[in-house]
């Protein structure tokens, strides 16, 4: 709780129940059958319209935390309250009705690779459709129109009839965003959405997330490896370390010392200019990036001179 001690004002604001939080996580614990305490007593409130970036080493609990929010992973104890509804107590249909209001995108995009981009996008409406209609019905006119609109928003309407696995990584992630938008979500979870993409593509995907956050007012919780992306896009940064919150505050408050606290003393920071793919890096940069990506204790930092 380093951030809380050093920044009482900010943390006081976050803990004040003046505005009803979109998401309230209370004493959340996740222990896997192997005995790993992935999340160790996490309590936090997320306000409407925030762009929260989760940072931390691999294995610090970012993915588990995101998955406990929509119960893809079953929490061991604690509560998750979304818009006043207790997700952790929800069962069956009630849980599915909550899930459909929470969009999610993934590091590996998780598209159904053998089917078309359009089918993948339409899958975002499944929570609003009966099982019977999924099998015998055709997608409704409104759903198809919405699918094309959302694909258009992420700039790939022309790929609607292509097979999902024919698309590049960045395009597949944009289909993932379109699929999530089909749910009309109030909250968007993004689990390492750019970790499989090159730096140029990463920015394009992050900009779409920023747009749905700013224009549609969708609250975003996004886990990231690159601190510079966190600074550039986040309105709030939460760092996890061994399942506990190690920092919670403004992106600009993460200085060298905090960085070391979060990522460990061996942490390496790597500077890469904006909008450049790995091909155009210098050899030294590429080597540093490769080193940073290989090592679990190293965190790469994408430096972004503001232009």
């Amino acid at each position: 709780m380093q951030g809380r001690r050093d920044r009482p004002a900010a943390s006081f604001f976050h803990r004040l129940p003046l505005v009803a939080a979109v998401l309230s996580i209370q004493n959340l614990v996740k222990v896997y059958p192997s005995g790993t305490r992935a999340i160790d007593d996490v309590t936090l409130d997320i306000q409407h319209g925030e762009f929260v970036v989760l940072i931390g080493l691999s294995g610090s609990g970012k993915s588990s935390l995101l998955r406990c929010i929509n119960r893809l992973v079953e929490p061991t104890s604690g509560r998750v309250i979304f818009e006043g509804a207790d997700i952790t107590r929800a069962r069956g249909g009630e849980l599915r009705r909550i899930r459909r209001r929470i969009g999610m995108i993934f590091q590996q995009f998780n598209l159904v690779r053998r089917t078309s981009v359009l089918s993948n996008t339409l899958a975002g409406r499944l929570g609003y459709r009966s099982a019977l209609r999924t099998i015998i019905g055709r997608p409704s006119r409104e759903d198809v129109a919405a699918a094309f609109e959302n694909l258009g928003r992420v700039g790939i309407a022309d790929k609607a009839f292509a097979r999902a696995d024919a698309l590049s990584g960045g395009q597949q992630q944009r289909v993932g965003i379109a699929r999530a938008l089909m749910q009309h979500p109030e909250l968007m979870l993004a689990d390492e959405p750019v970790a499989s993409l090159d730096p140029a593509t990463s920015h394009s995907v992050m900009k779409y997330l920023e747009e749905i956050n700013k224009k549609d007012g969708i609250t975003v919780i996004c886990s990231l490896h690159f601190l510079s992306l966190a600074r550039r896009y986040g309105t709030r940064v939460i760092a996890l370390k061994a399942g506990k919150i190690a920092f919670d505050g403004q992106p600009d408050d993460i200085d060298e010392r905090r960085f070391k606290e979060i990522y460990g003393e061996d942490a390496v920071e790597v500077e890469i200019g904006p909008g450049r793919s790995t091909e155009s890096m210098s050899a030294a940069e590429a080597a540093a990036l490769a080193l940073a990506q290989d090592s679990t204790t190293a965190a790469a930092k994408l430096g972004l001179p503001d232009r």
Partner: protein
Amino acid sequence: MAEYFSARGLPVPRELERNPLTDWRRLSVIAAAILVFYIGLRITNPDFSRANPEYAANVIGQLLHWDLRILTPQNEFETFWDTAEGLMVATIFLGIVATGFSILVALPLSFLGARNIMSGHPVTAAIYIFVRFFFTVIRSIDVLIVVIIFGVLIGIGTAAGVVGLAFHNVGVLGKLYSEAIEGIDAGPLEAITATGANRFQVIWTAVLPQIVNPYISFTIYRLDANVRLAPILGYVGGGGIGVLLFQSIQLLQYGAAGLIIFMIVVTVAAMDFASAQIRKRLV
């Protein structure tokens, strides 16, 4: 070579330590294999003394001197379906029908036998274990034994052949199908679950598109195997052309037997070629 490592204070790799020609471990394995073979030969004690080259040559001559009468109806009571080619056609369809029945049972069961679908709840996990155990048990009984048993239970004939073959194949196809489901990419399942879809919608949307190709491939493979197996089933009461072959040999009609064997060889070769072609186009 070993000196290179020892001179530098390095451990000598095991490959360099031993001479493969004198290594006692290798030699003892080879000696054990020869011993087992020798003991087996003494126990089985195959008696070749009754073999009569002259008689064998005579039978081979008869086998090649095909009796073409089995290709046409021989009296007013026989129809096309009593001729060898009629029985051959019926036998091929016996294999196809048996495959069809086994698909009907194995397809739904395979979802219950896939760990990634059934884990997550103690009851479904128990069903998974039971279904996979069921597949293993019925697969482990050889198809000829299954047909013999069904011949006793429901009477000798094509019914026993179809049911016996289908029963055995439920175990084989069920296992192959279940493993195809277990081999799918779990990512889409997670993503579709996250949209608020129910379990059935998840299977329909995220699982089915991923298993269509392996299912078709496995089904053609088993269809091929079943059509190969079908001609033998007549020997154990399963009906089809095997009955005619069995009778011809019992009645010393080697001309007829030779022709039937030739027809089976041609059918199996054609099936082999056809299934290879179909599977090649598919993948």
